């Protein structure tokens, strides 16, 4: 009933409903007392030469069906919301039904999840059944960003390459899923200028072993040590505590072309991994973390088995 700001429309519906029911009842009672000639007469319409419309009587049970339909309608509106002003004897609501189904699913599947909750994440990662459950959870909640093969996409980290922004230990993965992450790369375009950005990009690419202009890279190295090293480290290997990526492994979150790197340095980047802890609950996050861990730790996971 909260859909409307005043009670007007509720009563509007209710009054229309009452009038409709009264009209239908009156019509049917009236028709049930109606008369027709005892002899079956034509209504005067003939088609195709010999197909004619006659006023044959309807079977009496049709009349009963009309009454049954009306009574059904009234009973329905007494039991369920629908009359505009009355919520129904059964106290049914869409939200209530949803909650009931969620509770039922919770009661049924909760124990399955809880079984793994207390186990060590590495052990869970080595468990086939847990992995299957984890994969289903992953397919439901994670694929829309990270892809069904967990290979990620532009701006969404690859989860299978063993390269981690915030650390690849099971507990770290679990924290990432539960609490989310906010990865901020500030924009340096204004400070470095066009040439400065170009030079730094040459240097950054050289860290991953790309072929670059040596002079520009040397100029860029200077700027890098002044500005970038604070987060990415003097050697460019990044800092997992801050989520600053390793720039030496030729893994590029936003693309490895020089164009993309220049854009990253000039405009900065904002990466946000939403927190799933409250939404999914501890047990599911536990399974998901184990599954994600198993993606890049196959041999270890198998060895643990």
């Amino acid at each position, binding site marked *: 009933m909260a859909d409307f700001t005043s009670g007007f429309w509720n009563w509007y519906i209710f009054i229309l409903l009452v009038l409709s029911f009264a009209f239908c009842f009156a019509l049917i009672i009236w028709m049930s007392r109606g008369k027709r*000639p005892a002899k079956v007469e034509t209504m005067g319409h003939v088609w195709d030469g*010999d197909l004619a419309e006659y006023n044959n*009587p*309807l079977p009496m049970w049709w009349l009963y069906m009309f009454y049954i339909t009306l009574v059904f309608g009234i009973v329905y509106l007494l039991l369920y919301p629908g009359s505009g002003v009355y919520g129904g004897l059964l106290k049914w609501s869409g939200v209530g039904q949803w909650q009931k189904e969620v509770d039922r699913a919770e009661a049924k599947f909760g124990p399955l999840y809880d079984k793994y909750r207390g186990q060590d994440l590495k052990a869970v990662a080595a468990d086939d059944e847990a992995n299957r459950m984890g994969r289903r959870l992953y397919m439901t909640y994670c694929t829309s960003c990270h*892809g069904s*093969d967990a290979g990620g996409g532009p701006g969404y980290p690859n989860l299978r390459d063993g390269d981690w922004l915030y650390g690849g230990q099971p507990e770290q993965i679990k924290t990432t899923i539960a609490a989310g992450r906010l990865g901020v790369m500030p924009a340096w375009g204004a400070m470095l200028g066009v040439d400065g950005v170009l030079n730094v990009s040459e240097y950054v690419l050289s860290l991953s072993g790309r072929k670059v202009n040596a002079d520009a890279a040397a100029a860029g190295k200077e700027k890098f040590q002044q500005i970038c090293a604070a987060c990415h480290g003097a050697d460019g290997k990044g800092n997992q505590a801050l989520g600053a990526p390793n720039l030496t492994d030729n893994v590029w979150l936003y693309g490895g072309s020089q164009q993309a790197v220049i854009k990253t340095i000039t405009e900065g980047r904002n990466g946000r991994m939403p927190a799933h802890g409250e939404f999914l609950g501890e047990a599911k996050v536990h399974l998901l973390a184990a599954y994600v861990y198993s993606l890049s730790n196959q041999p270890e996971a198998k060895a643990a088995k």
Partner: protein
Amino acid sequence: MTGKRNSGKDGDPGDSGRPDKDKLYVPSLVEAQAEVSAKRPRTDRDAPKTEPSAGSRPHGGQRLATLAEADATTEALYARHKKVYPRQVHGFFADLRVLMVALTLGTFYGLPWLNWGADRQAFLIDLPGRKFNFFFWTFWPQDLFYLAVILILSALLLFFFTAIFGRVWCGFTCPQTVWTEVFLWIERKIDGDRMKQMKLARQPWNGEKVARRTAKYGAWVLFSLWTGFTFVGFFTPIRELAQAAFAFQLSAWETFWIFFYGFATFGNAGFLREQVCLYMCPYARFQGAMFDPNTLIISYDEKRGEPRGARGRVVDPKSQNLGDCIDCTLCVQVCPTGIDIRKGLQYQCIACAACVDVCDTVMDKMGYPRGLIRYTTENALEGKPSRILRPRVLVYGSLLAAIAVALVVSVLLRVPLDVDVVRDRNSLYRETNEGWIENVYTLRVLNMDDRPHRYRVSATGIDGLTLLTDVERLAIETGQVREIAVRLQADPAVLTERSTRVTFRVEAEDSPGLIATEEARFLGPGRL
């Protein structure tokens, strides 16, 4: 439907043929049409045969009488249901119907108990398991196509048989007819034949009536519940269902469907009976479109029978100016829909041929030739030759044969392997660090065979296309689906289009010929 052949009977007949008021009287369309045609300009075909009164009718395009001008005597707009008490009948067609009842109901009640192999119900529609056992075959939701073909085939069969034989479906195989026949049999065993049933209905409630009614309804209810139980047995293993039923451990849905289907049987076969044919069945109404003058119908031979009238057995009817119809009204008494076939073809007639059987016995007794009421065609009644092979039949027949052959061939050639390709939606494509263009797909592979297989996945469509997957051995148990993530990598230099067609191919390593292919799109940056 049409009743043109009866349009010449305007002058007569009604009054002698029409049962009196308190018997059931269903105004027939044909009778009504006769009235219409009497008021229309006459054509040669409609020319009156014998009735002198017909000539006195107006010839011009006269307006028909409307409601307002009609007779002052009135009745309610709704007619009370008058129960039809069909008299028991013996004869060829009655025996044929018993045979059909035994065949159809025997199949219905017996089939779920049949096992194929040790522990596999031969006919089981396993809804939770989403599969359908049909003897040695197993069908999956992916095979729904076959169901559609079978339904089309059934419809065509119905058209085909109707065009040739008229409403034989209604009279001999329709579930409504078949179950009603069993209920009538129970009713007759408990209450006796027509006259006793009518007497019992009239008499006040005494011990005998209560006893008989209890027995009858009790027997009906038992039979109905058995029917409901069998119905559910098509969907859930019937042996387990039987155990659960005897232990009172049926699930809520099983209980619901047993009682619901039982109730429907009880109501339809016990009470609604001919009302289903008259007021609910769409087939009764559209069959007219499939009839032509060569279609077999049940018809009273008016030329031979009229004028009707009672006479002694030894009297020569010609001397009394009488036809062969002795007006015994047995044809009306045996009719399960309560009509008088002598009024011509009517939509209420379900072609059960009860009137044919009973009239033949009467003709035998009178020493007249059989067939005053018989299976015949409109052409034959008019003395013209009837043709069986005609365009309508040939078209239905050839369609039927073509679809049936196609169905059998496609079922025999069916590959019990299904592949779906779902392209990842999170990104159009991605560039790998090595500079390849990569697309991600989920392959859903369903093993519909009756044994496990190991499959190999490959993809073609682009030069140098590489397929990568984490699953080294794609082994799938019988009846299982497996989803695998698959990456395709291509060299951007060879990708000339933004979207290129690629073909996935899944083949069993252990069984040659078990191959399924599915097309998908590979997206890239296009010509750079």
